[in-house]
Each structure stands twice: as structure tokens, then as C-alpha cells.
């Protein structure tokens, strides 16, 4: 496993994408700290980057990387190497390099300007979101043999979780506003990793009232620490489930 992982990491580092990503995050975080002296507000602005940019970059980069290393995967599978070793090696390689890029890009400026608990939570949600979207990217990669189609599916995942799902949720809440929907909404939020990450952050920042009705209810329903624990647990399922499913498909795939 480590031997295979070594070559995967080496390959990712050579593309220099991870470095560019780190630089981008570093510059934006640094700039936000320069603009505002209140670290709470900075974290809130960074939250928007984390919720939109991190999933997009993670899912697109992972899908492209998977198809670019198709030759490597093919070569390895003709050798005495287990299929799951190659597949999980690819996952670990991509996920760890993107997480490291995020942690360094956002974490270093935070350390420079003073770390606080909400900053740590932001780092945590960013890393978990990276894991979730790399996982989804691998799922979309094994669903089809065509690179363009796979990127299409990956972007659809991102659109769905970042934009469409919220719209649908709003629509449901609005059209059934005559009924008590609190519990239903909480359940529905668990189906969207981006919302879960947002809720963890908002509960931590203690500004859940800003999120309106659902946020207030969420805080009331769980209380802060339990809410964070529950969301983290569901997010963990969001990491494991897509990659597990992708692994099952990959094990039976013809190359």
C-alpha cells in the first residue's frame, strides 16, 4: 500500500495543482484578515469560501486526476496488487494532498493572526468537506468510462449540494408552511453535506439565529455541542458511503 501511495503522491505533487490551491487559499485568507480586524467576521467570510470553493475544487480536481491516472491504475492492476489497494491508495493520495493544501492555505494565516476555536472548527469543516467531495468525485469517476461525462456528473453533484438542494428545501418549507416542519427540516438537512458543514459552523459561532427558523430550531433541538457531534457524525457517513459504493463498483469494473 505505502509503495503504491508513494507513487500516487509523487504524481500529484508534480502537477503542482496542490501548490496553486494552497497559494490561492493563503492569499484569500491573508487578504480577509487584512481587511477586517475582527477575527469572528473573518471566519464568517472564510466560511463562504469553504462552502463554495472547497467542494468545487475538490470534486473537479479529483475527477480529473482519476482519469489522468487511468494508465497508472491499469498498469498496477496487471501487477500483483490488490484492486482495493490501488483504489483506496488513489483516494488517500488525492484526499490527503487536498486536505494538506487546505490546512496549510487557511491554517497558516490563521496562526499568524491568532488562532481561535471558531477558526479551528472552520479548518475541521473544510477538511471534512474536502473528504466528502473527493469521495463523491471517485463515485462519479467509476460510474462512467468517459472523462467529460464524469466531470459533468461531478459538477452536477456540486450544483445539487451547493445550490439546488437549498432551493428545494426552501420550496418545501414554504409550500408546507402550514404544517410543523421542524423535525422534517432537520432530517432533510442531513442529506446535504454542505448544509451540515454550515450548521456546524453556525452553531459554533453562536449566530444560528441568523440562519432563521431552521437554525434556531436546530440549536434548540440539539443544543450546541450535541448538534455539532451529530452533524459531524452524519458528515462522516457522507465520506464513507460514496467511497464505499465507488469501491464496490470499481472491484467489478472491466479495464
Amino acid at each position, binding site marked *: 500500500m505505502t*509503495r*503504491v501511495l508513494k*507513487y500516487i503522491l509523487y*504524481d500529484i505533487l*508534480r502537477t503542482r495543482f496542490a501548490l496553486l490551491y494552497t497559494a490561492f487559499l493563503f492569499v484569500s485568507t491573508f487578504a480577509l484578515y487584512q481587511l477586517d480586524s475582527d477575527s469572528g467576521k473573518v471566519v464568517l467570510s472564510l466560511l463562504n469560501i469553504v462552502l463554495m470553493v472547497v467542494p468545487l475544487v475538490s470534486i473537479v480536481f479529483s475527477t480529473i486526476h482519476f482519469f489522468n*491516472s*487511468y*494508465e*497508472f491504475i*491499469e*498498469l*498496477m*492492476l*496487471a*501487477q*500483483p*496488487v*490488490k*484492486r482495493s489497494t490501488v483504489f483506496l491508495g488513489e483516494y488517500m493520495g488525492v484526499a490527503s494532498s487536498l486536505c494538506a493544501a487546505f490546512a496549510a492555505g487557511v491554517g497558516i494565516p490563521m496562526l499568524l493572526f491568532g488562532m481561535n476555536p471558531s477558526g479551528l472548527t472552520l479548518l475541521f469543516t473544510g477538511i471534512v468537506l474536502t473528504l466528502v467531495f473527493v469521495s463523491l468525485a471517485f463515485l462519479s469517476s467509476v460510474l462512467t468510462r468517459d472523462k467529460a461525462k464524469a466531470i459533468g456528473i461531478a459538477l452536477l453533484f456540486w450544483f445539487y449540494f451547493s445550490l439546488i438542494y437549498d432551493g428545494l428545501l426552501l420550496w418545501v418549507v414554504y409550500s408546507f408552511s402550514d404544517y410543523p416542519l421542524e423535525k422534517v427540516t432537520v432530517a432533510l438537512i442531513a442529506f446535504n453535506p454542505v448544509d451540515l458543514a454550515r450548521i456546524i459552523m453556525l452553531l459554533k459561532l453562536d449566530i444560528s439565529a441568523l440562519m432563521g427558523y431552521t437554525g434556531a430550531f436546530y440549536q434548540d433541538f440539539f443544543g450546541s455541542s450535541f448538534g455539532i457531534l451529530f452533524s459531524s457524525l452524519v458528515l462522516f457517513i457522507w465520506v464513507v458511503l460514496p467511497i464505499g459504493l465507488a469501491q464496490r463498483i470499481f472491484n*467489478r*469494473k*472491466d*479495464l
Partner: protein
Amino acid sequence: MISVKQVEKKFGRLTALEKVSLEFQTGKSYALVGPNGSGKTTLIKSILGLVVPTSGEILFDEKSIRHDWMYRDKIGYMPQIGRYPENMRIGQLFDMMKNIRQEHQKVDEDLIDAFKLYKMYDKRMHGLSGGTRQKVSAALAFLFHVPVYILDEPTAGLDPISVEILKEKIIHEKHLNKLLIVTSHILSDLDELTNNMVYMFEGKVHYDNTIEQLKAETKETRLSKALTTFIRQKELVASVSDL
């Protein structure tokens, strides 16, 4: 050594292999022959576990390969179209393969020397010509001392001198009592390299015996003649039974 039992493979509506049963034994050399799209490569990829059969079973040393992967340690494989990480250098590629198969202490660099590949160690894979790529594939297949060699169209795209080098190497390994499976469309090559022949057509095995036997049956001295006569006879029988 390798038994293929009632293997069937469907790609959607297309049946690539139809109840194929074959025995490959140690010390023998097999030519896998058939027109394009007759299922030769699919059969080879199934043996390597790159393609998962729809039904049926493949045994390697009496053990099913279904969930096994260590058996590939005993196979040297040369693909029809060698696809390699494009931005890797040739030297890195060889190092990587040696590293992945660390268990083998001794490597066999005969072909690397014979093809003078060490001179090109720092060339990247994406800049290579088709022939050089094929040489790399061949050198990789023979990089370890293994009991089984599977070669998918080994001589396609190589220049005449390199073809001779590769053939010498194959014959050398054959005399060391290894199992060889070779596909090719150049029947004169197969006549030199192999003793047994498997003829496939539309996913089915139509002939599986020694080349000597085929030549005796058809009263021909060259494999290419013998095979065409065999196919004509088959077609004749088929058209008679259709009536």
C-alpha cells in the same frame, strides 16, 4: 496451470466470450489466433483479472482467481497497447515496477540491454514512438523471472531487428519450461514461437490442439496455409449443415 472453465463475458448486448473452456499447461506454448474482435484480448484480460467474466471460472494453479491477486506475481504480461503514466520517464517506470514487485530479488534486464533502452532512461513516456513504447512493454513483461508469460501481439509495430531480438528472448524462455501464451496475426512468427494453437472465432474456441496436428490434418507444411485450409473446411461443413 491455468484452466478456463465455461467463461462467458458480455459487454451489454455483445457477447465477447461464449462458454470458453481451455487448459494451459506449464512447459507448453500456445498461440492464440483469431480475427479481430474474436475475443482474444478479452480472454487474456480475464486471465489477468482486468476483465471480470459474466459467468464461469478461471483457475490459476487450481485456485480461483476471483478474489485472488497474488497469482499475478507469476505472470509477465505485455499488453496490446501499452498505456503508461505519460509524464513518467522510462527509467522511473522500470524503477517503479521493480519497487512494486520487491519480492523478486533478481530482475531480468536482457531486453533492456538488447533494445538499448538504458540510453533513453530519461525520456518521458509521452514523447515515445509506437515502436519504442512496444519495446518498453516487452522489457517490462520480461523484467522478472516468472513461470508464465502472456504476450498480446508482441511483434506489432517493432522494426525487423527488434522483432528478432524479442523472438529470441521468447524462444529462450520457452526452452526454460515456461508457459507462454502469445497472440498475433503474423502466423509465421507463431509457427516459430509456439507448439499449440487455440483458434477463436466470434467468442468461441474452434480449435485447440498442437500445431503439428493441425498441419497433419490439413496436409500443409506452413501454419498460415494450414489455418486457412482449416477455416475453409469449417466454412464448408457449416454451409453443408445449413442446407
